[in-house]
């Protein structure tokens, strides 16, 4: 891996994005869909659970 390769990689990245390569777009969309949904589910459940795990939230009588 030389500096040249890195420059070439950068150039290819720009080219791929600008050309909106369909295969690449599919990969990007799936990445965002999978990670986005996983994060949304984890946040929806994880934040309330994290908040409830503070014992002071539970010491309230009644």
């Amino acid at each position, binding site marked *: *891996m030389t500096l040249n*390769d*890195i420059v*070439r*990689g*950068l*150039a*290819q*990245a720009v080219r*791929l*994005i600008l050309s909106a390569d369909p*295969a*690449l777009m*599919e*990969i*990007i969309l*799936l*990445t*965002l*869909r*999978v*990670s986005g*949904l*996983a*994060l949304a*589910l*984890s*946040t929806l*459940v*994880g*934040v*309330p*659970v*994290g*908040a*409830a*795990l*503070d*014992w*002071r*939230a539970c010491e*309230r009588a009644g």
Partner: protein
Amino acid sequence: MRARGLITALLYTGMGLPPVVVGLFVYLMLSRSGPLGVLSWLFTPSAMIAAQVIIAFPLVSGLTMTAVQSVDPALRLQVRSLGATRLQEVWAVLKEARIGVVAAIVAAFGGVISEVGAVMLVGGNIEGKTRVLTTAIVLNTRTGEFSLALALGIILLALAFLANAAMLRLQGMTNIE
């Protein structure tokens, strides 16, 4: 209380779960003869989402717990004495701890977007079906397509940066009120 310590220890362990072990576990659960085999989720995006939830959930809940615990106890007493319902009390505490809560979500996002071991195992890196940026990088590096792998890596970094910038903006917006 001992249970509290145990839950905390389990959660902190969950925050450091090796993704590949999560992948193996989900794979076994979803494999045809596994307990959840009837779902037919293996090698689909659903399986990848399931694995990533297992990775992200302890991060979100563990770091949210830490953030909430560092809120001044006086705030809780104050909103309670003002007659807040339990839900309102939790909401007030979460709002006070919002910087830590957003940090928890950001950490979990960093975990799932960069994750490769689990999604590779349960998704199978099938072109046009379950191939994501990280698994595509692994494939292209292995096959010697270094500039393509690097290009995908740069795109992944850019996506992560944009997503984090958006989340921090959200954090800033909640600060204004």
